[in-house]
């Protein structure tokens, strides 16, 4: 699940909760799902991988990454 689909789903849930016609159980389930997705999205924001690497194509057709010093 990608960051933007998480965000889009949360926005969607907010919209759904703003419309008043859903049963309370459903509202609570939606809210819980929204919080869960928010957690995922925030985790994605904070995962630290601040490196620059170089893509290397191996002779067997596979790929590997090597550190690249800029």
């Amino acid at each position: 699940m990608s960051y933007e689909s998480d965000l889009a789903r949360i926005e969607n849930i907010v919209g759904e909760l703003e419309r008043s016609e859903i049963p309370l159980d459903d509202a609570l389930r939606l809210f819980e799902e929204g919080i869960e997705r928010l957690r995922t999205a925030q985790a994605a924001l904070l995962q630290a991988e601040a490196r620059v690497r170089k893509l290397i194509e191996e002779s067997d057709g596979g790929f590997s990454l090597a550190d690249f010093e800029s």
Partner: protein
Amino acid sequence: MRRPSRRPLPQTELLEPQLFASEPPRNYGSRAPQAAALPAGATREHPMTVEALTTSAKTVIEGAFSPIWIRGEISSFTRHQNGHWYFSLRGEKASIRCVLWSSNIWRIPALPENGMQVVVLGQLTVYPFRGELQCMVTSLDAVGDGLWRKALAESTERLRADGLLEPSRKRPLPRLPRRVAVITSPDGAALHDIIVVMRRRCPTVEIVLVPAKVQGEGAPADLMRAIACVGRWGAVDTVIIGRGGGSREDLWAFNSEAVARALAACAIPTISAVGHEVDITLCDLVADHRAPTPSAAAEAAVPVLADAIAEAASLREALRGALVRQVERRRDRLQRTAAELRASLERGSERRRARVSAVAGRLHALSPLAVLARGYAVARDAGGATLGSVENFTPASDFDLLLRDGTVRATTRSVHPARGDGE
């Protein structure tokens, strides 16, 4: 076929005086030791070979001219099967044979046509095999950039015809990529700019360099290899392809139709960032996003981390607010309903009370007890049945008299039915 037969004449006229001027024949006469080594061709006894002549002419000509720009009209253009291009450059009353080696063809944007006015950069030489003056061309363009424009227009049209320029093809870029691949030269300014901007905006995103040759011979093929490589690898969310500013020739690999097609076919969303703002290449046209510079590409690729965090926080607030309102709306409705219920209950019980008392009034009026209250009595048998007629009585039978304030046990003495027209 007429032209080749005409050309040798002015060439020999041109070559001979130079050749002899550079090797003055008089010197040997005054120097006895050199008399034995007569320069070839100085006398009838020591003729020069044709090979020596043309080779010597080649040396002289090449020494006399540095690479020069020449303007003329293309004629007799042929692409030989050996890969080289041959043509003549014609002026009004002169022409010169030109060759463009296959190793230089990548520099030429499009195929020149006969009759086209061009400017070429070439080194003048002699083609010894024919003793012909020849220009070795390294660069060629139609007067006024025509060839570049022609090549670009033709390629653009083909891409358009194949639907590759459709705006609907453009995919949105991921808002928060985890990894961004950068196809560019490992030591170019573009890579540096992209790294600086991406680190500043969103230091949590990983940058993966896919090194490629971005200019010169073989650059298009290398760019295509890099694009294909990223596609096969696939473990990346966004691809930036680009380079810093440069001459039109430097940027030309990004105008390669083959490169543009490879980029259009890339399964991962692409950002093209070639040169400066004014430079628009075929890659820019087919990429999902066109950035005017490599720095702008980095800006388009990643959000500002702090903004994204703030956005997530405001989403959390929106979510919480929506749920709270959801509950509040329900509570309000519940309260309203409860109040309505209470009110309707109250209204209902009042109605019932009124009805009960009305019925009670009517019931009371009809009650036989009301009649007894006025002083009447009712006779009933032991079972409680009313004895309303003399026929219900027999002498000596017991019965009850029901009065206003109690019951009297009585016995029948005699029975006297009413007779005639009454008493």
